[in-house]
């Protein structure tokens, strides 16, 4: 449990650090071949829909992932 908390904190720190350290640079359309890769989308894929439904039923929180935030089904 303690280990998992540390992993969580380190992941957060890594995300925060990478966003602040990496400076934005203008990217032209022809430089976006990697960004346009279907695996690089900034949203959940349809194949994850049942997982997201399950999480919204079984967990007390939802939202901020492009999925449901409540309502629409018997979940909260």
């Amino acid at each position: 449990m303690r280990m998992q908390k540390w992993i969580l904190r380190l992941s957060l720190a890594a995300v925060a650090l990478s966003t602040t350290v990496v400076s934005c640079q203008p990217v032209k359309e022809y430089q976006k071949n990697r960004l346009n890769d279907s695996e690089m989308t900034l949203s959940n894929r349809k194949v994850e829909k049942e997982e997201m439904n399950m999480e919204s039923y079984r967990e007390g929180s939802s939202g901020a992932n492009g999925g449901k935030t409540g309502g629409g089904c018997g979940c909260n």
Partner: protein
Amino acid sequence: MKRVCLTVTGMCLIVLHAFSQGSPKDTSTYKPRALKLDEVEIVSSYYDQTANKSAVSGGQTGPMGNANVTDLSNGVELTFVGWDKHQGKNTLTAGLGYDAHTAASQAWVSKTGASKKSGTRIYPSLNWAHENALKGTGYELGAYYSTEYNYRSIGFDAGISQKTRDKNGEFSAKLTTYFDEVKLIYPSEFVKGLITNNTDSTIYITGFNGQTEAIPPGATSKRDKKDVPSSPRDTYSAAFSYSQVFNPRLQGSVELDLVEQTGYLGLPFHRVYFTNGQDTIEKLPSQRFKLPIGFRLNYFLGDDVILKAYYRFYIDDWGVRSHTASLEVPIKISSFFSVSPFYRYYIQTAANYFAPFEKHLTTDTYYTSNYALSAFSANLFGAGIRLAPPKGILDKHFNSLELRYAHYTETTDLVSNVISLDLKFR
């Protein structure tokens, strides 16, 4: 499992037949075009759960607390694309979903365990989106409907998006409302018997909706088993997101939702047992405000590996706080075949109104023994494969195939597995 295979195979054959009438035309030169079928997507999932401490039985363990679930979910989406004379892209998506589930806990809505254990859900949807690539603007409208035995929902949404001048950033906002009806199906011990022929003096019965019915001598109650009252549950949400390209390999986004729910926010067949052993029906506030905020960061490492990180913080006014962190690593084995292992960690605090079996006091204002509102942590891991050869799979119209398996465990002892298949035809 046989039913799953037959359903998926049947749907694939129908879709291939639909596309076999003509070959795709070259769309590289711009021409206004009326809406035309562009893509058919079929998603099927099978979910299996073993758990105990069901909310229907007030969080108790043993045979009455059995919370095992299976769910077979099938959905099909037809996407039509057209172009207007101002180079605007119109996309119309029509979807239909059908779920069939079994839930052991449902049997215990009746005190004897004799209630029906299975159910179905049907949910059609319609979405229209307009996008202008030159201006970087987008609009969308959607309508949703969902119906199951004890629940009905109608939803609408409207969204806008605007890209930054350099097309490396995009802001979007979306408003969503759901107007739901919860059927007030109570545990059997709380349902009064129906009066078929009153031989006594006038009887007054107050229903669960608070309305009182008078039954004179010789008359029969107007209510019957089908006449179960409903209670509304409304959800209003505003979702805001901003995405940014940082460099040719890195992009990220931040997503913020503001969600307000009002009405009947529990489920009427959830029991709660007080410390004195007496049972009652779950009681929760009629209002809830939720505030989740999420961050995504996707990085293309080298030529074959992608790192997809996600973190969400959630807070609401029922006392639930949660953290979610996940990492998915798609690895490109070839240009059209990838494998994606993933891991997700989740932790939450309990809602102010949660207590386990026989721990609530009769003096409590609100009470629930639903373990989704307890303090717990969860781990989810698994892997997915994606196949999208340029010449199609077996047929040129069979565009891509994705298969994904996930294993989920909670510290509440809930364990589940979900396997999903996504097929795309163009």
